[in-house]
């Protein structure tokens, strides 16, 4: 269908350029849109704890990438938020296991906002005094996540599945670990991981490649840079579990549970397997599956029960989380269903429909400037384009899923995490209100 191909190519088209500095720039002009969303991302996240920079070995406490993200908004002239306030841009940032992203959306003064972003990330400034100041706020953030049952399930499962991989540690670290951060550590991280050749600049919306390149030029990103000699250091991680089971108590109304399966790490850039695993999960316990329907109708879990793939360098696992009064029964039903699908093969109709859904999702993510830039940046960090993802998806077959299932979701590599109510959470009496302004 050549006409269809052309519509798709046009919609998914983005412009790529690798600058002499090594920075990858991706732009998707979106006619008719008022805003532009820009993401400046580095392949540096919470798992990057041990590395060699030139001849020096660096070992970081947990939470440095996230701490650095906070401190990046501050320089000798003051706070970058204050500078964004002068352009009207709405700025933010986030840190994940394997990346840190700085972003803004602007409808006016895009050039000025780009300069604020590129300068703040390009010219870091840290002192012990400003580091000490930040510890209070980040400590509060850590405590906020400590109260989230969903997040505790994820971190608890990672602690069970892994012996030494840094995915075991919370992205934000602990109050104790961040207390040991020094300016020297932060500068080392910037030198190692904020080099342009480790970064991606993605922009989507009311802009052009020329406009983005001009900003790069103004900020010295067109000049060649000597490549930093950085080597990430990984400790050996056996395929055994660190623990089979873990239970904690929290102020929740109902018990929560998680099941984690440790899988072989995927090669860097292998987004195909990740997509295939997603489709397998959709077949086993997605909304169209028999298992989901049984769990739903019998009230065994909450409607949000489902699986997800967590994959970073040196680590790949599949996590199922939900709430249940009978977590062990749910676990057994899930294991039985995995065994059945492994023996019989995935349901062909459901597999095709799951692919349909993924295709629709990829198209949807090209629709607004935020999703569009995020999707481009995500794929670019793995060296791929959206168009390649659509092609990869089209090429996936049910037989691929059957073959993969012989290797993944093995019971001997499964850990269980329970969160039991501590008895302080009473049943709510409640009303809800919409917030507007």
């Amino acid at each position, binding site marked *: 269908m050549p006409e269809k191909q052309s*519509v798709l190519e046009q*919609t998914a088209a983005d412009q790529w350029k690798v600058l002499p500095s090594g920075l990858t720039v991706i732009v998707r002009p979106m*006619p*008719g*849109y008022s*805003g532009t969303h820009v993401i400046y991302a580095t392949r540096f996240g919470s798992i990057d704890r041990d590395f060699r920079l030139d001849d020096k070995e660096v070992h970081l406490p947990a939470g440095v990438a996230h701490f650095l993200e906070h401190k990046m908004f501050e320089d000798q002239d003051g*706070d970058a*938020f*204050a500078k964004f*306030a*002068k*352009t*009207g*841009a*709405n*700025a933010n940032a986030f840190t994940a296991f394997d990346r840190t992203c700085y972003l803004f959306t602007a*409808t*006016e003064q895009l050039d000025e906002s780009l300069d604020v972003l590129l300068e703040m990330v390009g010219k870091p400034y840290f002192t012990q005094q400003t580091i000490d*100041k930040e510890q*209070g706020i980040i400590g*509060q953030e850590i*405590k*906020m996540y*400590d*109260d989230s049952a969903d997040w505790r399930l994820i971190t608890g499962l990672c602690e069970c599945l892994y012996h030494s991989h840094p995915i075991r540690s919370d992205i934000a670290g602990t109050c104790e670990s961040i207390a040991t951060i020094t300016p020297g550590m932060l500068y080392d991280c910037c030198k190692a991981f904020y080099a342009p050749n480790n970064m991606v600049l993605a922009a989507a919306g009311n802009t052009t490649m020329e406009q983005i390149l001009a900003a790069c030029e103004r900020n010295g990103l067109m000049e060649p840079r000597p490549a930093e000699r950085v080597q990430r250091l990984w400790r050996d991680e056996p395929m055994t579990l660190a623990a089979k089971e873990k239970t904690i108590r929290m*102020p929740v*109304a*109902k018990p929560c549970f998680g099941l984690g399966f440790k899988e072989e790490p995927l090669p860097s850039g292998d987004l195909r397997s990740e997509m295939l695993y997603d489709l397998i999960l959709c077949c086993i316990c997605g*909304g*169209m599956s028999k298992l989901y*329907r049984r769990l*739903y109708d019998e*009230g065994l879990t*909450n409607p949000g029960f489902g699986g997800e793939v967590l994959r970073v360098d040196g680590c790949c696992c599949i996590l199922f989380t939900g*709430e249940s009064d009978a977590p062990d029964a749910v676990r057994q039903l899930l294991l039985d269903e995995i065994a059945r699908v492994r023996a019989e093969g995935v349901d062909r*109709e*459901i597999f095709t*429909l799951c692919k*349909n*859904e*993924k295709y*629709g999702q990829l*198209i*949807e993510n*090209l*629709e607004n*400037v935020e999703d569009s830039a995020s999707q481009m940046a995500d794929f670019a960090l793995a060296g791929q384009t959206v168009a390649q993802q659509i092609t990869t998806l089209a090429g996936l077959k049910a037989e691929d899923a059957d073959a993969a299932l012989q290797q993944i979701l093995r019971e001997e590599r499964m850990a269980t995490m329970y969160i039991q109510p501590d008895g*302080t*959470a009473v*049943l*709510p*009496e*409640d*009303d*809800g*209100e*919409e*917030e*507007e*302004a």
Partner: protein
Amino acid sequence: MKRMEIAPGVHLSWDPAQKFNRCRVSIHFALPAKRETATAHALLPLVMERGYADCPDMTQLTKKLARLYGADLTVDARPMGANHNLCVSVTGIKDQFALEGEPLTREYAELALGTAFHPYFVGETFAPDAVNIEKQMLKKALEDEVNEKRLYCQRQANREFFGDSPAGVRQEGYLEEVEGLTARQLTDAYYEMLRAASIELIVLGCGEAQTEAVKNALLEELSQVERAPAALAENMAMPRREPLYKTETFDTTQAKLCMLFTLGQPMQPRQLAAVRLAMALYGGSVTSRLFLNVRERDHLCYYCSSSFQSFTGSMAVNSGVEHADAARAEKAVLKELADLCDGPITDEELEDCRRSLLSGMTGLEDTLGGIETWYYMEVLRGGPIQSPDEARAALCAVTKEDVRAILRALTLSVSYCLTREEGSTHA
């Protein structure tokens, strides 16, 4: 966005929104909330979303949506002050992206109308089996709300704040009533909605002929209903009162604080621009006083923000704080408000906030959700419907005194704290 009345109490809002990859058909039903039917109306969306007459089975409906490239069918109920709003919406990729040339938009419209007007009945009521399953889901959802402490704190504060007023009807349902609810009662609530609701059909991203077809199909459905639209509840405000301080004990790592303020009288639509700027200045942005002073300077909390609800003329300040700092945070929140009311406001901070709001308004028509939310809120608020451009112009005219007038009118009614330390939480 074009808007026209197509029948008494029924409007069509339409925007071809050509730049988007998806289109959206939504049908909003708005009616005054009632205490006696609140739980039935809370259950209604869950049962309606499971299936409808032409596709009664939940799993088959999920497959149908997947066939439509993962189209999203949502039946969503939410409080709008003293009114209740149920929205049936279908959003999906446009026909041009269908790999086999399927007429997707037509199917989206059929799905939305089928779900709204042809629910799956066994005999004369919703299917009892489906009702029973969804009752369990509603119970679970109500029981689980305590897991999200920030939301829970805000809702507990709301209960104290609104009391028995119409805006205090718990529209997500009353836990103790769920078990006893029958399929008959649910069906009655559904028919009450069809009969009494103001209806807004919103069609985004469709051509003129497609929109006309959806409109006519809706009118055809409504011709089968004996309609008697009820007037919607007007904007209200809780009367001023002596502040109530409440503490609830939980063994959490972080304490949560929610402070609710009343405007004392209903917000007028003409005040909205000043309210927006007042919120941005006080606690609704990263250049606000609460963010810069309470969070960044005093390090009292990870988040501390304000938001305003125009239907109820109320402002909420939510904060996550150290248990030991809750009283200090509460004091700081009040001090920042007092400083804005009586102290200097610099031109720079006012213009920073205004610029940020203007920028956000310029971009809100970049998403389907942004367009729909903007215009539908304008409809519900009453008064003339402002486009984002008109709202921008109004915002440009707001002065410091306008902002102060809003903030000075806000007085504290309720301060609610979730903490593990009893007795030392309030200022």
